[in-house]
C-alpha cells in the first residue's frame, strides 16, 4: 500500500474527500436555497468526520457525526422549516456587494496558507496515529477535568438561555 513511503490509499481518499468538501463548502456559501445550504453543510461535516477517521481520531469522528449531523444540522433544518417553508431559491440571501467579502476571504486564505506552507513545509504525519476511546476518556477525566466541567456548565447555561430566549411571552 505504500509508494516511496507514501500511503497511497489514504492520499487518494483524502483527495476525493477534500474535493467533495471544497465543492460543498463553496455551494454552501453561494446557494440561494437555504435547505440546500443545510444539506451541503451535512456533506462538509461528513467530510470532516471522514478526515478525522483518516487521521485515526475515531471517537472524534463519530462524535462529529452524532452531534453535528445528528443534532446541529437537524436543528438548522428545524429552524428553517419553522420560519419559512418555501421551496426553491429565496430573495435576499446575500448582500448585493460581495467584493469586500471576497477580498477579505482571499486575504485570510492567502495569509494562512502562506503561514502553514512556510511553517511546516513537507512535515509528515506519523503513519499510525490511531487513538482509542479509552485514551480520550482518560485524558478528559484527568488532565482536562476542569474544562470538561466548565463545558458542561456552559451547555446547561446555553440550554436555559435558548429556552428563555425562544419562549413565547
Amino acid at each position, binding site marked *: *500500500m*505504500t*509508494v516511496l513511503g507514501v500511503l497511497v490509499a489514504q492520499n487518494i481518499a483524502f483527495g476525493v474527500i477534500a474535493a467533495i468538501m471544497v465543492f460543498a463548502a463553496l455551494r454552501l456559501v453561494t446557494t440561494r*436555497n437555504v*435547505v*440546500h445550504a443545510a*444539506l451541503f453543510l*451535512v456533506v462538509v461535516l461528513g467530510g470532516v468526520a471522514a478526515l478525522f477517521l483518516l487521521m485515526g481520531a*475515531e*471517537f472524534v469522528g*463519530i*462524535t462529529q*457525526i*452524532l452531534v453535528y*449531523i*445528528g*443534532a446541529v*444540522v*437537524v436543528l438548522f*433544518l*428545524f429552524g428553517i*422549516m419553522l420560519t419559512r*417553508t418555501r*421551496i*426553491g431559491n429565496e430573495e435576499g440571501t446575500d448582500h448585493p456587494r460581495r467584493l469586500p467579502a471576497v477580498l477579505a476571504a482571499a486575504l485570510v486564505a492567502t495569509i494562512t496558507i502562506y503561514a502553514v506552507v512556510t511553517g511546516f513545509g513537507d512535515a509528515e504525519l506519523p503513519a499510525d496515529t490511531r487513538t*482509542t*476511546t479509552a485514551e480520550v476518556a482518560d485524558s478528559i477525566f484527568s488532565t482536562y477535568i476542569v474544562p470538561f466541567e466548565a463545558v458542561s456548565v456552559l451547555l446547561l447555561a446555553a440550554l436555559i438561555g435558548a429556552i428563555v430566549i425562544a419562549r413565547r411571552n
Partner: protein
Amino acid sequence: MIWTLALELAYWQQTAIKLVVVALVIPTGAIILGYVFLMKMMSFMQSRLGPMEAGPYGTLQLLADGVKFLQKEDVFPRRADRYVFALAPVVVLMSTFLLYVVLPVGPDAVVSGLDAGLFFALAAASLSVIGVLMAGWGSANKYALMGGMRAAGQLIAYELPLVLAAIGVVIQAGTLDLNKIVLAQANGELFGWGGMGFPYILTQFVGFAIFLVAVQAELTQPPFDMPVAESEIVGGYQVEYTGFRFLFFFMGEFGTAFAFAGIASVLFLGGWYVPGLDPTSGWFNLIGPFVMFIKIMAVSALIFWFRFTFPRLREDQLQKLAWKVLIPLALLNIVVTGVVKVLV
C-alpha cells in the same frame, strides 16, 4: 508501483464480500420480518386473513409486492425539490446500512470492529432524521412536512432514552466495543457460577425495557406512528413516494428494526454467545449468525407484538413519555448502575 498485491486483493475482496453481505442482509431481514410478523403474526393477533395466494401459505407475497413496487412509475410531485426528494430515501437506507457495519455475529464475523462500535451505531441511527426531514420538506406537501417535523421531533426525543439505556450496559461492560460487550457477558459469572455467562438483561432489565420502547419510537411504528399516521396526515413524509423509492423506506424501516433487534440482543442477551461453549472458539463465526438470528427474531417478536396491540398515542403524550418518564428513568438507571459498579 510496489503493490503488495496479494494482501491488497484480499483487502478489497474482503471489503467487497462484506459489502455484499450487508447489502443482502437488509432486504433479507426486511422480507423475513415483513413476512413473518407483518403478514402472519399480525393476521393471527388481529384475527384477520393474511395473504395466502402467492406461493404456499402466501410465502411469495412479499416478493410479489417488491416486483410490483419496481414496476410502478417513478413519480415526482410537480413543485417538489427534485434532488432532495430523490435523495431522501437513499439517506434513510444508508443510515440503515451503516448500522450493520458494526453489528457482530461472531468473534471475527463483523464488518468493522470499531473501538467505539456502539457509539457508531447510535450515530448512524441518528442520520435517518436528516433523510426524513428531507423527504418531508422535498415533497412540497403540507402533510409530508408535518409528518417530517413530527418524525424529526420524535426521533430526536427518543434518541436520548435509546442512548441512555445503552449506557447502563456500557458502564457494566466497561467498553463501547460491541464484540467486547458480548465477551464481557460470555465471561461473566452468575453468583460465582460461570456456566452460562451473564446476560446483562438480568441487571439491566430497566435499560432493556427503555431500549425497546425507544426503538419502537425510532421505527415510527405503532404506538408511536404519528409521523405516518394515515388517519391524521395520510402517510406523513411518505405520502408522495411511490415505486422503488417507497420500497426504500419500507426496507429502511424493517432493516432498522432488524438491526436494532440485533443491537438489543448484543447488549442485553449475550449476542452470538451460547452458554456452555468457549467464547474464543472459531466455531462461533459459523454458528454465531444463527444464534444471532434466533435472538433477533425473539426481540423482533417483542417489538412487533407492541406494534400490533397498542393504539396510537397523541403527539403530546409521546413527548411527555420521552422527557418525563423514559429519560429520568434511564438517568436513574445509569446512576444506580454506576454506584453499584463502583461499590462492587
